[in-house]
């Protein structure tokens, strides 16, 4: 009997945690997208007004941005300082950051597209590319907010409900 109770508790705990994690991903994605958009807007200022080089701008942004977005800039800056190209550094940093965040592969693809343009042209063109990326991410944010409203609570209840159903079936 005790073993059954322990098993039921374990099942309930596991499914609830899975549901909670899924729900958390839906809740976190819009927030992280907003952080990313804000930081890219700051990058526009650093490039167009401050005329700072990319490693300098990234180092400043990494200090101002919260986790995991700060990681994108700190990694890119560190890799560039080691002598890697902007394209390679940004690409590696995006992959690393996305794996530690609630962002999706679609969001990652938008950021990866920026890799080939960063630092390669004059100020106006850089601003154009950054604004385009900001636009795409803003669309993704709207979609992420819709998804959060629809799926965050659902995932939480689904996790908990799956646990309850499994326990009833086991009994």
């Amino acid at each position, binding site marked *: 009997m005790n073993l059954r109770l322990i098993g039921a508790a374990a099942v309930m705990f596991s499914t609830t945690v899975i549901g909670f994690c899924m729900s958390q991903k839906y809740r976190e994605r819009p927030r992280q997208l907003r952080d990313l958009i804000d930081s890219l807007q700051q990058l526009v200022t650093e490039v167009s007004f401050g005329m700072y*080089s990319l490693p*300098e701008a990234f180092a400043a942004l990494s200090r101002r941005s919260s986790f995991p977005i700060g990681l994108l800039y700190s990694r890119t800056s560190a890799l560039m300082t080691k002598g890697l190209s902007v394209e390679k550094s940004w690409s590696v940093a995006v992959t690393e950051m996305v794996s530690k965040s609630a962002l999706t592969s679609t969001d990652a693809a938008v950021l990866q597209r920026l890799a080939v343009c960063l*630092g390669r*042209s004059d100020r106006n063109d850089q601003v154009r590319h950054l604004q385009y990326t900001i636009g795409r991410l803003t669309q993704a944010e709207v979609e992420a907010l819709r998804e959060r409203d629809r799926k965050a609570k659902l995932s939480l209840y689904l996790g908990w409900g799956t646990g309850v159903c499994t326990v009833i079936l086991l009994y």
Partner: protein
Amino acid sequence: MRAHRPLTACFAGEDHFIEVSGRRCMNPIHAYGVTWEDIQATWQLMTHGSLYAFEEEMKRGYITLPGGHRVGIAGKVILERGEVHLIRDIAGLNLRIARAVKGAAKDVVPRILSRPKHAVSVESTLLISPPQCGKTTMLRDLARIVSSGDPSLGLKAHKVVIIDERSEIAACHRGIPQHDVGPKTDVLDGCPKAEGALMALRALSPEVIVTDEIGRIEDVNALIEARNGGVCVMATAHGKDWEEVKKRPILQPLWESCVFGRVVVLSRRRGPGTVESVHCSS
């Protein structure tokens, strides 16, 4: 560095080729052949992959690195409305290592004082020489000495403003001069000479304005304006000798307005910074 050609370095005015091991040689066959990729990688490191940050400098055909080192660029020049827009397909980089030589102007200072006996100030001075004869090095040291003052000559410390259009005189990094330019020196880093001279007059109340390589009529007019404002001016100009420079049409207004009290002619006869002659121009 020239793509698909041997790596070359100039030591004390003499060109050498560089082997793969890093040793100098005179035969180009033994030298390291610079690849296109070498140029691109070097360019990427020099610009930190941020071309936009060097946009204006590139239009002039060179960029300045921290430390005041100048990198000349060779490649395909793209024009926009008849003006240089950018240089692409960069295939050659010419790196000039800058170094400050403290004391380079020591022997010149007594000769440009307005009253050597009770030296209270310096005369406006123009340094003339062909390229690579140490004009900028001497100008930097002049700025340092004038800003610090020299009690042995009775020279008081002056408030100096350096208009460092190409960041070569003070080699500022994040606004801080990397070379010693004196305790009472302000630097307008990366500022065009014409605008800088007027800005300095209005905002920084200088006693001496220092600037490099006068070449445009706007620069000439700004120096005349500064001189008329009661400020002493120190500048450089390309030229073989005083007679040749005197004939340059663009500089005529400077002589007509008696902007410079002294003209110092330099050469590299006994090494860079050799003082050939000092003229009173007024």
